Structure formats: C-alpha cells, structure tokens
C-alpha cells in the first residue's frame, strides 16, 4: 500500500480510530498494530507475509535461546545471520547471482541457471532489505547484551512489522523502540501537531518535488537517443539528486509523523545531506538509519578504524560496497558503493576537506567538490547499466553541447524550491525566519496542503520500495 494513495488515507483513518478506542491497553494496541501492519503489507502480495513471519520467528526464538543457553550464543547468532542473509539472497539476489554465473561460465547458449530459477524467487518482496536488517539488529543487540530479549511475541512482531516504516525504513532499533512501545503514553496535542507537520512536509517532498521531477529524469535516462549536451546531463543528475532525496526523505518524514501519532519517536533519517562539505559529513546526513546500521553491525565488528590504516580502508570499502549491493542486485549499485568508498578513502588519506575549508570561499569549494562527487556517484545509482553510466559521465565532463539544463519551467521551479531550501539551511536562515505565530503556522501548512493537492506530480511508487 502506498502512502501517496487514497486507500492509504482510508486505511490510516481506520487504524488510528480503532487505536484510539483501545486506549491504554498495551497488548491490545500492539496486537492491532501487528494486524494492521500485516494487512498493509499483504495488500501488495500476501504470499510474502510468510517471509516477515519467518525472519521474525527466527530472530525472536534465537534471542530467547541466547538468554537461556548463554554458551550457544555465537551459534544462535550465526544461525540467525545465515537464515536472514539466506532469505535475502534467495529473494533479492538469486536472479543477479544466476545471471552472473551464466555469464561467467558461458551458459547462455545451452543450460541457463537464470532460466531455471523459479519465477517466485525472481520477485523481490517489497522492503525485504529493510525488515531483514531490522530483524537482524534485534538479535545482534541481544547477543551484545545491549538489551534483554522480549518475551511477548506480539510485542516483537509489532516492532518488526510496524507499518509506517516496514517497507522503506527508517530502520529502527529494538533497544530504542520496544521500551517506547511498551510504555503507554497519551499523545499530546503538541505531538500530534508535530506529527502532522512531518506528514505534510513528507507528502510535499514526495508528491510535489519528487513526483514532478521523475518524468524529467525518466525521459533523459530512457531516451533511445541519449542527449549529447554536458549541461543537460548535469541538469538531469541534479534533478535526480533532488528526486531521490525528496522521494526517500519524504517517505521517512511521513513515517516519522505517523509514528508520532502513535506516540513513538523514530530517529531522523536525513539531515540536509546536500549541504555537506565532506563525504564523511554526507554519510552522517544521508539515510542515517542505514549508515549507522552498517557502522554498528559491520564496520565496527570488522575492526573499524582501530586496526591500522590499511585495515581501516579495507573495512570502509567492504562496508560501502555491501551498502551499494544492499540497494539492489545490479553492478550499478556496487559501482555506486565502490565510488563512495573511493571518495571516502581519498578523503581519509588526504584530509582535503579540512585543508580546503579554512575560509568561507574554501568551504564553498569543499561543498562544490563534495556535491560533484555525490552527483557523479548518483549517475551509477540511476543508470540502467554500467555502460550507460560511463557514457553519461563522459558526456558530463566533455563540457560541450547545447547550453540547456533540460529542466523546462516545471523542473526549474521545483529544483529552484529545493536549492533555496537547502541554501536557507546552510546559511541558517531557516531558523531566523521560522514562523513562530501559531495562526500563521496553520495558514502556512494549509497552503502547503493546497499545493500538494493541486501541484502533485504523476503519482509513482517510492524509489526505495524496490530495496
């Protein structure tokens, strides 16, 4: 079920109305949350509900068994990791693996592994990477004694399947979520208003900015005769950078707003990533719940930066490349991760952002260089193939062709809004000019709703659903 559909509006209305009736009964509320979340997910394809149940049951029982049989903790953790990564591999990567084995062994002519892979395994269940990682984080945290396993199976499944973040995050940790969920709180008026603001801002980002930029990006990337203008491709990649940001940050904001209405607090997933002046800073602002997941459950266990310079870089590369692969089963995602690893490694070796950012002009130069790196990496993320990505990058750096960004009036307005917004954050103007009068604030949000209704783009799925 899509957040930007009328059906979801109906679903959410019924959910919150019944949740209110359940009052302070924690178990009833969590049971209702679980049922509603399963319905929300099953609406897309009920057959894949068994994967959430499977993943969840493994981790729920593994965590309980860790407490009961401390000597078998490592074995139980391994079992959980194998089961989770196994189901992820089968349902997300089997087509990719089979295709590459076919190519490697030259199997395309006769027997083909891909052709013999059951169709069911070639459908990627919506949000599989999100809930698998969320489920795994629970077992990891119990293993590391960061939390006690929960005894209530409903509590666990309410945490795992919570519909606001089930299919596209943010990936929330059990150690912060479960205590919140077990505490009965009355949602205050202020919290409801804060939730409302988040929801409206989220819909604005998704439906007005991302959905209006999507046709521009799709047309550029799917054109049979690629444009040969450098400026056009820079313009297209800037449009895509804002599209993917608003698409995903929009979803996160809606999820956080809905959680607020339930009385829960999800962590912030995006903090204006495009104002970063170093790659390190970018990764503290972009998809924070995923980058911290990889940091805590992969980079640090691998040794992080504590085992010498060489190992630090190796660990960084492993983390980044796997984070690329997490996004999708294609070499373009691997290349995206590798490129980020390369830029980050280079930054660690040279410390160039620190050297450059000593003045206002220096900070601007650092921002420009980081932005260019991020944009070049986005080409790989969005391209249909590695060949297309290289062809686009070659055109971008040829600095030739017509002087046209390819935005048109629509693109210019929506990209302009985003540039002004990010600029105001970078210069601190957003705080200075924040609307403080509650009446004007209400008028402002009412106007934003009207803009969403009348300037919404062609409705399309959230990009991160496919991950």
């Amino acid at each position, binding site marked *: *079920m*899509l957040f930007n*559909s*009328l*059906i*979801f509006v109906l679903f959410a209305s019924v959910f919150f109305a019944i949740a209110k009736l359940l009052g302070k009964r924690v178990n009833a509320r969590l049971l209702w949350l679980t049922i509603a979340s399963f319905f929300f997910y099953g*609406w*897309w394809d009920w057959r894949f509900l068994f994967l959430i149940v499977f993943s969840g049951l493994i981790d729920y029982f593994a965590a309980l068994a860790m407490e009961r049989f401390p000597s078998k903790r490592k074995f139980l953790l391994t079992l959980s990791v194998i089961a989770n990564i196994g189901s992820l591999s089968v349902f997300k990567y089997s087509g990719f693996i089979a295709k590459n084995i076919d190519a490697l062994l030259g199997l395309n002519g006769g027997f083909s592994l891909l052709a013999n892979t059951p169709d069911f395994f070639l459908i990627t269940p919506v949000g599989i990477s999100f809930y698998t990682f969320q489920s795994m984080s629970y077992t990891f945290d119990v293993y590391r004694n960061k939390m006690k396993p929960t005894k209530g199976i409903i509590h666990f499944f309410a945490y795992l399947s919570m519909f606001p973040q089930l299919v596209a995050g943010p990936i929330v940790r059990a150690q912060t979520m479960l205590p919140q969920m077990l505490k009965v709180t009355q949602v205050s008026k202020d919290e409801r208003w804060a939730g409302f603001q988040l929801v409206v801002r989220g819909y604005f980002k998704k439906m007005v900015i991302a959905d*209006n930029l999507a046709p521009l990006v799709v047309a550029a990337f799917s054109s049979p005769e690629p444009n040969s203008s450098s400026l056009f491709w820079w313009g297209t990649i800037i449009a895509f950078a804002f599209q993917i940001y608003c698409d995903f940050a929009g979803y996160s904001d809606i999820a956080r707003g809905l959680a607020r209405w339930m009385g829960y607090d999800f962590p912030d997933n995006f903090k204006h990533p495009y104002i970063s002046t170093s790659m390190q800073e970018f990764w503290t602002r972009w998809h924070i719940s995923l980058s911290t997941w990889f940091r805590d459950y992969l980079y640090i266990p691998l040794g992080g930066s504590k085992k010498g310079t060489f190992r630090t870089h190796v660990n960084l590369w492993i983390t980044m490349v796997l984070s690329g692969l997490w996004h999708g089963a294609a070499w373009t995602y691997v290349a995206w991760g590798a490129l980020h690893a390369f830029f980050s490694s280079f930054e660690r070796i040279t410390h160039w952002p620190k050297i450059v950012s000593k003045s206002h002009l220096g900070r601007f130069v650092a921002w420009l260089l980081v932005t260019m790196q991020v944009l070049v990496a986005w080409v790989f993320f969005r391209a249909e193939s590695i060949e297309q990505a290289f062809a686009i990058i070659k055109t971008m750096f040829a600095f030739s062709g017509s002087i046209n960004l390819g935005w*048109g*009036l*629509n693109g210019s*307005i929506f990209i302009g809004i985003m540039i002004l917004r990010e600029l105001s954050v970078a210069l601190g103007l957003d705080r200075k000019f924040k609307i403080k009068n509650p009446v004007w604030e*209400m*008028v402002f*949000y*009412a*106007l934003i*709703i*009207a803009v969403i*209704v*009348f*300037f*919404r*783009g062609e*409705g399309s799925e959230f990009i991160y659903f496919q991950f």
Partner: protein
Amino acid sequence: MLAAIFCGLLSFVLPKNNEKYLSEYFWSRKTLSKQKYNMIIMGDSRVYRGVSPQIMQKQLPQLKILNFGYSNGGLNPAMFEAAEQKLVANSSTKIIVLGITANSVSGYTEKNTQYLQELMRPREEVIERLYFSPVKYWFSPVSPQQLKLWLFEPPPVAYYKNEYHLNGYVRSEKFPADTMEAIPSYVKDFTNYKVDGSKLETLYKQVGEWNNNGITVVGFRPPVSFSMRMLEDTMGLYNEAEIEARMTKAGAHWLKLDHSQYKTYDGSHLDEYSAVQLSDTLAKFIKSIHW
C-alpha cells in the same frame, strides 16, 4: 479545515483534466469489470476507435455488446481467453467480432502491453481509478507549465479529442486531420514485424473451436487510408484474400468492406462519422447472418 477551504476555492478556479480521469476509469473498467456480454469486439486501436456498440445496438437491441479493443491489441491466446470470459455463459447468442489488422497478428502486439498493464495495475490504483475518479477530477493537478499556458496563451487551434464510452468505444476527433500522419510509425513497425503465419494459424484454430462451441465469429479488416492499406499489404505482408478464405473455412463470417467509403483522421483511425458508418454496416451484417 483551513486547508479544505483553500482546496475548495482553488478547485473552482483551476483548470481540470477531464480526459485523464475518464480514460483511467474507462480502461480499468473495460479490463476488470465482471459484466458479461453477448458480443465481444476484439482488436487494436482501430477497433476501439472505429466500432461503437451503441450504434450497433440500434440494429441489435437485444444484445449486450462490449468493444474489447486495446492499443496494440493482439489477437492471440491470452486475449482470446480474456474475451471468452466476458461472454455470457448460458446464452444462445454469443458472438465474437475480430478486427484483423496486420499489427494484431504480428510479433509487435504479442505482449498485449496495454491489456496487461491494466490487468496488473496495483490494487490501490485500480480502486482510485474506479471509485475516486470524480474526486481526483475535481482536484486535478496542474503543472506550472500548464498554468502558464492556461493563463497567458490563447487556446490552441489544433486539437485531439477522445470521448470515452462505457461500452469500450472511444469517439475520436482530430483537427487538422492528416491522413499521412501514421505512415512513418507503421513503416518503422513493419521493418521489424510482419504478419506472422503461426499467429494466423493459431487464430484460425481458435475460430474453429469457437465455431464448434456455438460462438458466432465475424471477421473484418478495419478500414484505413489507401496508402496505409498498400503499406500493410506490401511491407506488412497482409494478404486479405487469404485471411478471408481461411477465416471462412474455419467457420467465420467475413465482412468485406469498401475502404474508399471511409475516412480516417491520420491514415489509421476512422473519424467519428466513418466509425458510425462502420458500426452500422457491421451490425446489419451480423443481423443478416444471425437472424
């Protein structure tokens, strides 16, 4: 409340996109409706723009008729099955009308792209299209570009209007008409795809089966411009005489049409007047063979 007031006021002022929502409703309903009919008319856009069940019903008032044509609609087993399911099961009058174009029996249409797109559409989208289209119409979105045109530019002289009928027919009107307009795209299609003999064999076999099962089958070649017909015959390898002979042999009734009596607006699709004429001719022909 304030937002509702703003939206309400703006909905009276801003332009609306009537055609978009009507077409969304039209295609979802055509594909997913469980309603049953006595007569199903199959084919591609020439069929859904060229045959009006409403006009046919003037001759055949006792029949429920659906135009089941799709853009790039193929005549292949998947579509045969879908059409059969739309027929009333226990009726003595069951008729399938086939508008056979070169593209509909070539590899070009074998994927049934539009039909499958409608069939596989996410459930929430279908619900919105079927039940919320008046709301979506009332709050039609506008882009800044559209707003600029609406506010500052005079309405364009050229137009292309589509009127969606619930019986599956789309009344089409284009100004100015250009009977050569569609030719280049068909040249491109026929460079890659031609009439496929195996697809025709499948069609004849299906016609035979329908005939044995008591379903009356009627075939015709949708009228097009002279240039288009020549192009289909030469580049697309469409052999009307052979198709007519094989269809008749399989048990179908073939309606031979004088293409010079019909006018198209782009060389491929009939204008409104010719669509009425074709529908009437087709209905009279069916009346003559069935009653």
